[in-house]
């Protein structure tokens, strides 16, 4: 009765290279992501993980390489295009809208699905209200899912770090993405919060069938929940495979041992 079945390749990155004014952030990286899987990108600090994520969702444009999303080439995709194509993401340094409540933050995630025009919104009654209420109901499900009912109307700025991360995830989920990119979702959390987050990631993947691409600095947690892992070091791919394969990969071992011990 397993809910998810790992499917075909949904996202294929080919020979991605990215540099900033001569500094190479990513060198010739290729890997793919299959539908419904949890794909982790790990590597020591400065390995290019964040750059990789930024490339995938169009914040950075790679100098070389191709991004194939569901068979379509997307090398010149911008963030907006990525969002439209069903990619959502969270941020390592929480990028919530600090002047808004939790509810409003999550509601922004629905913006692509809201259709009422400006005049309708100004008049409110009718189309705009109906739409607003529909989306509110959707958002409430996410709030319930992530167990953040008690902070629904709190301004996000007042929340502790762990909860902010959860709201960040909620906002991404509100987009009903096909692919969810998580940028160090467990950074800075305590053990309990990490466990919660793992549970949420698994639940998302499981219940909504969302493909998850996550990057993480800390190997431990990730290995438990990922289906396949890419390992980056100094902008280069040094390993790719199931957690067990990667753990056994001598390059990975040396990179990790060399970097962190």
């Amino acid at each position, binding site marked *: 009765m397993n809910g998810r079945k790992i499917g075909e390749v949904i996202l294929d990155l080919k020979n991605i290279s990215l540099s900033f004014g001569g500094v190479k952030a990513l060198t010739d990286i290729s890997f793919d992501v299959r539908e419904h899987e949890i794909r982790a990108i790990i590597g020591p600090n400065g390995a290019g993980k964040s750059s990789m994520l930024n490339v995938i969702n169009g914040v950075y444009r790679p100098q070389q390489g191709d991004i194939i999303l569901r068979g379509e080439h997307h090398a010149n995709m911008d963030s907006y295009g990525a969002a439209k194509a069903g990619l959502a993401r969270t941020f*390592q340094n929480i990028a919530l809208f600090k002047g808004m409540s939790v509810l409003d933050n999550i509601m922004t995630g629905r913006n692509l699905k809201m259709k009422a025009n400006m005049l309708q919104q100004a008049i409110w009654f009718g189309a705009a209200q109906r739409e607003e209420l529909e989306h509110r109901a959707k958002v409430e499900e996410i709030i319930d899912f992530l167990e953040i009912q008690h902070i629904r109307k709190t301004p996000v700025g007042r929340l502790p770090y762990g909860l902010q991360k959860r709201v960040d995830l909620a906002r991404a989920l509100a987009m009903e993405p096909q692919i969810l990119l998580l940028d160090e979702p467990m950074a800075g959390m305590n053990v309990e919060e990490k466990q919660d987050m793992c549970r949420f990631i698994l639940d998302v993947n499981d219940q909504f069938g969302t493909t998850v691409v996550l990057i993480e600095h800390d190997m431990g947690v990730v290995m438990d929940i990922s289906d396949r892992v890419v390992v980056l070091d100094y902008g280069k791919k040094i390993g790719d495979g199931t957690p067990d394969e990667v753990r056994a990969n001598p390059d990975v071992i040396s990179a990790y041992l060399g970097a962190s011990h």
Partner: protein
Amino acid sequence: MAFFLETLLGGLMSGMLYSLVALGFVLIFKASGVFNFAQGAMVLFAALAMARFSEWIPDWLGMENLFVANLLAFAVAVVVMFVVAWLIERLALRYLVNQEGATLLMATLGIAYVLDGIGQTIFGSDIYKIDVGMPKDPVMMLESVFEGGILINKEDFIAALIAALLVISLSIFFQKTATGRALRAVADDHQAAQSIGIPLDRIWVIVWCVAGITALVAGIIWGSKLGVQFSLSTIALRALPVVILGGLTSVPGAIIGGLIIGVGEKLSEVYLGPYVGGGIEIWFAYMLALVFLLFRPQGLFGEKIIDRV
């Protein structure tokens, strides 16, 4: 051709005068992130102080010597500007550290009101004269080359020289003195500067003092050129495109920006103005700055802003 050169020269010299005011903006923005809308009010305040003291001091001392009177008045005005700078930092900006740019900008507008009010209360709101012996009459150059020669405004020329001098001395101050180096450190990174033991409060007072002196010099030059009265404070608005064009954080930017704006607006007024009815120089200067911005959003010499995710 001669006329073109004259316009060019005129623009350059106006530009230098704008730069003088722009410098004040840049100094303060660089060190404290405050976009000081009160710069114009400071210029007026300084000029008023200079003008009035140079009037009063001979009365008080009962002597006639214009040079001595000006010198003394200058000294007093310097002190006055130091006090003003210190008070601004003490009473207002100290409490506004880390506020948003717009808030700071509003605060300086508030300060401008206060300065305008106090200035007029103490010094009066009539027209006053600063006579530092600047020559008023024009000279002609290259009369052999062009018919009628090229007109040089001696006053502007001297003013431009003084402006240049000020920039050089400021550069030296920044490069060679300990305080100057501390100032630059603060400009680069507040927190880092603080962590290596540079007292931010004091640095900011110093910056405001330096800006105060710049305002005084600008005030004297503009004042002797235009007469000291309320409208002097509006020259700050003329200097704004200069700062934007040059970049908010760059001293050389203020100079180059001033020259570009000065030349640009004069040429536009003289050559384009007549076709559209004239009076275009102000908005033209702003448009010029704006067009530059579209290509370099951080200004000519400003630091590039990089988004991090």
